[in-house]
Every structure is written in C-alpha cells, then in structure tokens.
C-alpha cells in the first residue's frame, strides 16, 4: 500500500514538471497555431542560464527565475519576429523552422559546453520532507506549487484582463481581432515571448532536480506533446491536468510494467486520444476548426 501511494506521489510530482513545460507549449499553440518543437530546448536554455547565474552571480535558481524569465521572454519575441513572422503564411514551414531551431540550439550548446553534464547543488537539491512514511523532494514540491500558480495566474489573466481577452480574440479570429484595433503581430510576439519565458521558469525550477546536458530538452518535449494532446489543444487547464495524467501514467507503467515501456504507454494513449477524442479531455469542441480556418 505504501508503495502504491509512493508511486502515485511520484507520478503527481513528475506530472507537475510536465505540466510546467506543456503550459507554455500549449499557450503558443493555442494562440499562434505553431507547434513549437524547440520548447524543450527553451527549457534547456533556461537551465543553462540558471546555472550561469548560479555560478557567476551566486543566484539561487529560485531567484535566478527573475532573470531567466525576461531573458527567455526577449529571446522568444525575437524568434517570433525574425523567424516565425516572415513565415506567417506558410504554417508548415513554421513547424519546420521550430524543428530547425531545436537542432540549432541543441548543437550550439553542445559545441559550447563540449557536451559535459552539469549539475549544481542548491539548498533545495537534497532536501526532502516526510509525508507519512514517504520522503518527498522539496524541489519537486516547489515545481508543483509553481506550476499551480502559473496555471491559475495564466487562466485568470486570459479571462479577466483586456490583454488576455485580446490574446484569446487573436486566437479565435485574427482578422476580426485586427478590426478591433488589436495589433496581431505584436500579440504573437508577446505570446511567444511569454511561452518561452515560461519554459525558462521551468528550466530554473528543474535545475536543482536534474543533471543538465544539452539534449535534456527531449526529455521534456515528448511528454509535453502527449500532455497537450491528452489535455486539449489550447487549454490551460488541459495542459495542467494532462501533465498529471501523463506523470501518473509514467509512474504506474514504470512500477507495474517496465520502466522501459513508459514512453510506449504515453504514445499509445497519445494516439488513442487523437483517434477517439481529438479535442482532448478539456479542449473546446470545434476550437481546432477555428484555428485551422483560413483567416486571411
């Protein structure tokens, strides 16, 4: 029984990490309709930036977030403005471009670091708290709390603020949004910047937990895709809850089946959801048509 509870707990904590990566991915997809294959590499950049800030400025990763978010935000805006916007009328090329960015960023970082693994020990790294008979990593609990704050905050902002409503308007009908006086290109830049910034925050939160390599992004992007499809394209809650479902699936499959099978299990679910319920568990029915409709 204790081991079952342990597996569930491990799954939820892992899910929090996946949600963290998936929320930014889903925000970008939901608004700009670009599948950002490089989102995992943005997380990787966030982790390296956190390590640099830790080494040079002695900034704790949790403080380093305050530096990493704006860095990745500006980087994301530049990517949208100079790479994706020129390809705006060729959505297929945008997806290839993000894949190209994945390879580019990974290989540049590989060249710069020589591929050596890096890990830092922060006060949170080895810290655990006892939950009943179980020991829980504090860094993972912090990540779980952070993703909850991000999900609630983002949902609130998108539904309550005028900027949030404008972002949703752009996602639903960019031509009509222009007629409201909304600068669509600027909204895309802010959205992509914010999505990249969230990847940076995820990187900072994950630095105390994982050993860093230039290829680490792949560990996050695959589950994040499964999360997005499972939870629902373009939905904040979908990404949040989908993260836990994938995390739990991985933990249960790893414990009861075979750790080597965990990815196979995700992708079986991924394909099943695509076939049975393409909108995901929390996606709005018909929302994908809105996005795919020729708008200009």
């Amino acid at each position, binding site marked *: 029984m204790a081991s079952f509870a342990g597996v569930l707990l491990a799954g939820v904590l892992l899910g929090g990490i996946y949600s963290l990566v998936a929320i930014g991915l889903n925000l970008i997809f939901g608004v700009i309709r670009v599948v950002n294959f490089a989102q995992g590499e943005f997380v990787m950049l966030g982790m390296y930036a956190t390590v640099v800030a830790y080494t040079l400025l002695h900034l704790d990763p949790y403080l380093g977030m305050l530096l990493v978010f704006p860095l990745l935000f500006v980087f994301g805006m530049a990517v949208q403005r100079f790479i994706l916007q020129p390809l705006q009328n060729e959505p297929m090329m945008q997806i290839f471009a993000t894949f190209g960015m994945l390879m580019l960023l990974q290989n540049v970082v590989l060249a710069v670091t020589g591929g050596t693994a890096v890990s830092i020990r922060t006060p949170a790294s080895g810290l655990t708290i006892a939950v009943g008979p179980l020991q829980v990593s504090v860094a993972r609990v912090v990540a779980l709390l952070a993703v909850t704050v991000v999900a609630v905050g983002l949902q609130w902002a998108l539904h309550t603020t005028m900027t949030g409503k404008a972002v*949703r308007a752009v996602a*639903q009908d960019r031509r009509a949004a222009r007629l409201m*006086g909304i600068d669509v290109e600027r909204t895309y830049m802010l959205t992509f910047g914010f999505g990249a910034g969230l990847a940076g925050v995820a990187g900072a939160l994950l630095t105390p937990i994982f050993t860093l390599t230039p290829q680490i992004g792949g560990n996050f992007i695959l589950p994040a895709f499964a999360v997005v499809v499972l939870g629902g394209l373009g939905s904040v809650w979908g990404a949040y809850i989908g993260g836990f479902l994938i995390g739990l699936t991985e933990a249960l499959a790893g414990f009861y089946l075979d750790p080597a099978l965990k990815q196979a299990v995700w992708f079986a679910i991924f394909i099943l959801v695509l076939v049975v319920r393409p909108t995901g568990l929390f996606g709005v029915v018909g929302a994908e048509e809105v996005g795919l409709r020729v708008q200009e």
Partner: protein
Amino acid sequence: MSALLTVTALHAGYGTVPVLRGVSLYVNAGEIVAIVGANGAGKSTLLGAISGLLPPTGGTIMFRGADVTARPAHRGPASGMALVPEGGRLFPFLTVEDNLLLGGFTVADKAERLRRLNEVMETFPILGERRFQLAGKLSGGERQMCAVARAIMSRPALMMLDEPSVGLSPLMVERILAAVQTLVARIGLSVLLVEQNTVEALEVADRAYVLDHGNFVLDGPARTLAADPRVQQAYMGL
C-alpha cells in the same frame, strides 16, 4: 465642406488578380451610402481596402483629412473607422460581453469602456440578456446585432457594414437596418453599407453606387437609383 471619407481611383485585388479597377467615392458626415452590385463585383474587396485589411495596389483613401491609404487595419478604430465584417465574425468562444468590450479595445479608460458597454446593451436589450452567453451560441440576427454593437463601442465616425443581410430573414434584415438608421440619427454616425439586397439597401441609404466588375457603373441619390429601370432590372428583380 470636405467629405468624411474620399476614395480616389482605388485599385485592389488578390495576388495578381485585380478586383477593383479605379473606383472613386465619397461619404459625407451623417450620410448612409450604399454600395450595391452582384456577387463578385468587388464590394467586400472595397471595404477590405478601405479598412486596411487588404492593402490597395493604387489610388488614395482620405479619411477625416488624413491619408490612410497604406494604414494597417488595427489603426482603424482609434481613427474613427469601424468595419462590421460579413457574418459578423464575433469571437465564438468569448461571451457577448467580452466581444463588446473588445470593440472598445482602443479605449484606454476602463470606466469609459464599461459606460459604453452599458450604453450599447441599452440600445440592444437582447445583448444585455445574452451578456454571459458565448457569442457562438447566438442566433443569426443576434449575432449581427452584436457585431454592430461591437463596432459602435469604439464610437466610430464611419461604420462600414459588409452584407449585414446575408443569411437573415427579411424581417431581421429590416430590424438590423432600422437599428443602424436609429444609430445614425442618434450619434451622428456615417455608414458605408455594402449589400447584395439592393431593395433594402436603397431604402435606407441616402446615396448609392452600383458596382459592376470592379467599376462603378451608376451612382446618385438612392431614391433615383431605386426608380431607375436599369437598376430595377439588373439588381432588384423587378
């Protein structure tokens, strides 16, 4: 007095396909001007070019004394120009209220935006009743009402309407156009109305232009055009 909107020798099209071949028109303050013509004559292209959604390939557009020929569409509302696109194009997964608020996106003052929201909901009580419903759930007539109300939120000097009658019952068309006429009288709005429904359009308009294959072939007071046998035969089914 110079006109509110003056379009001179306007050319526009899609890719290499020209649609408008040098059209000129003007709209005075407080006027309802109709553009009538068959499907494919270039009516929607004209409104697209004036609003900035489709950059013109030639000619000039002057609005309130300023050259707005190459201006991007998102600058329209702040300058006093609003377009109600065909079908309304509401944001289907936003509430009626959020749609209306976005009509006032360029209004920086939140209190002012809310004041205007209450005002349009008084003008269109049905929208007040549907306030928290998703816009995608509205009926065709309500949707068109909501699109007009959304455009009014920016307090435009010129409201352009693209085929407001499409898909609506004749009774609903009359109600929408009557609502537009009321707005013109009440807030001193000018209207540029593009319509395939020539009978209705000429009934509410002060002046009209007849568009055929990218050129204006006739223009004049709406009543005169409505009585013109050429217009009656070609566009009014009489």
